[in-house]
């Protein structure tokens, strides 16, 4: 059936409770793009494997021996010593804010942490897929079409598969940020503040989402969010040691290791979609030491973001604000590996709702957004030069384009709560 002849616009005017609708034109484009790009990526690696090209050609995500579940597994010795002096003296650094010990300890205190954690990640993916399906159904989408889109987004999710393979703690941030954004979108501001506060305590950068409250003069919620951040941080420090000051200084030292070993290094550059990663990519042939650049870059980004926020983001509709802040949260840190892109799924759910509410003649507004999203969220395993992956640099460029697009073009008719 031609897209223009779908019953989409007619049914929308009748409201979501009327006859079920099919997917709108922009959503079909999006689904086609993510499925096609994933088939190309997986097909490419399959052929490379058959032809014996070796790595990195023969595996669609990051592969290094010992890398599977490494980000969770590497803490095993440390967390077996939780609450003892041995916890603080370990080979690898613990480069997270103190609150991150709480969810990690929750898993390490179970009888089978190496089953419990992957199952938790899988269950989270399934939960959000079902939630997305239900959101689509509530918009009046036919069950088969809603299932097709929800399953399509789930099966092609490169950031989620990467997160699952690494067993990264980003899962906790993802859950908190997604629930926070959804709560905000639905008008549950206090819950949103709690979720953003929790996410900020776990990984600092989600503090950027407090920027959603300011234009709506929701100052009490900001105070609540900051209180949650501080409270959870103190609980994390107290869990580490009865001497909170000692635990705090120890954690600050651990966080500095991030700047020392990762921030300036081109380590796994093909999987680092940060804007600073583009600088590393351009300067790669000379392999300079970029450590002196990290601090000026951070300051420059902070000033630019503030100028952008008060100069432009403040005046934009909610959907634009959510999209822009989500993109910034995953692209402005000096290092941001591809699993952090899972935080972009809440904005895409909002874009999908918008796509279902727009008439056919306005669908083209959303197509560039969806195309950029498709390039960002699929493996891109075929972007290899001289045996090195550079898919993340394409993602960084697409994130930049998405940012510019969302800044320049206000999305039409602010969707109300579903």
């Amino acid at each position, binding site marked *: 059936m031609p897209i223009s002849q779908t019953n989409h616009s007619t049914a929308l005017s009748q409201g979501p409770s009327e006859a079920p609708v099919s997917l709108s034109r922009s959503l079909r484009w999006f689904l086609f793009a993510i*499925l096609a790009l994933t088939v190309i990526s997986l097909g490419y690696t399959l052929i490379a494997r058959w032809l014996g090209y070796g790595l990195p050609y023969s595996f669609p995500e990051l*592969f290094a*021996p010992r890398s599977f579940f490494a980000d969770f597994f590497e803490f095993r010795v440390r967390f077996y010593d939780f609450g003892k002096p041995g916890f603080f003296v370990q080979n690898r650094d613990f480069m997270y804010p103190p609150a991150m010990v709480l969810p990690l300890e929750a898993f390490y205190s179970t009888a089978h942490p190496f089953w419990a954690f992957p199952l938790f990640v899988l269950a989270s993916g399934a939960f959000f897929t079902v939630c997305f399906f239900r959101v689509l159904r509530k918009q009046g989408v036919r069950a088969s079409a809603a299932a097709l889109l929800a399953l399509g987004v789930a099966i*092609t999710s490169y950031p989620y598969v990467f997160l699952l393979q690494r067993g990264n703690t980003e899962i906790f941030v993802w859950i908190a940020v997604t629930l926070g954004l959804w709560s905000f979108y639905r008008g549950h501001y206090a819950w949103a503040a709690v979720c953003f506060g929790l996410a900020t305590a776990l990984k600092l950068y989600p503090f950027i989402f407090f920027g959603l409250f300011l234009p709506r003069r929701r100052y009490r919620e900001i105070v609540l969010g900051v209180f949650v951040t501080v409270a959870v941080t103190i609980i994390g420090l107290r869990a580490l040691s009865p001497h909170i000051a000692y635990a705090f200084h120890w954690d600050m030292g651990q966080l500095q290791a991030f700047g020392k070993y990762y921030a300036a290094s081109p380590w796994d550059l093909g999987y680092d979609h940060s804007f600073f990663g583009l600088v590393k990519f351009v300067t790669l042939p000379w392999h300079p030491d970029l450590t002196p650049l990290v601090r000026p870059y951070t300051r420059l980004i902070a000033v630019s973001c503030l100028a952008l926020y008060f100069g432009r983001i403040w005046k934009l509709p909610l959907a634009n604000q959510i999209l822009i802040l989500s993109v910034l949260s995953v692209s402005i840190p000096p290092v941001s590996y591809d699993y952090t892109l899972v935080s972009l799924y809440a904005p895409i759910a909002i874009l999908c709702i918008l796509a279902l509410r727009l008439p056919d003649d306005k669908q083209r507004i959303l197509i560039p957004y969806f195309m950029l999203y498709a390039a960002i969220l699929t493996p891109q395993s075929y972007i290899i030069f001289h045996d090195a992956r550079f898919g993340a640099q394409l993602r960084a460029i697409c994130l930049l384009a998405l940012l510019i697009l969302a800044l320049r073009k206000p999305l039409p008719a602010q969707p109300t709560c579903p």
Partner: protein
Amino acid sequence: MRLHWLFSLKTLSIMLLLCFLLTAEETIHLLRSRPNEIDWSRTSNHHPGCTVLDAAGRILRCPVRGYGDMNFLCSDEGCVAKQPGLYITPAENQFLKMLFSK
């Protein structure tokens, strides 16, 4: 040119099925191959089955179960996955030291 059939639910369903099949094949191959199980005693001095790629003998190309060969950066204490390029950056050296020093 009429390309509407590309975006029909039927075509999209077939593409989704293809994605499922490719993902399933990839997952089954991964679980069967167990690529994590490699020779951890491998060093720059002891590296059976590997090809030396640089004059210093620190960059080796070694087999990984089920996925062909890949490059490793080695010291006399152990090996890690090599970052792209046949040169050793200060960051790589630092990381290798950190990994095996303590």
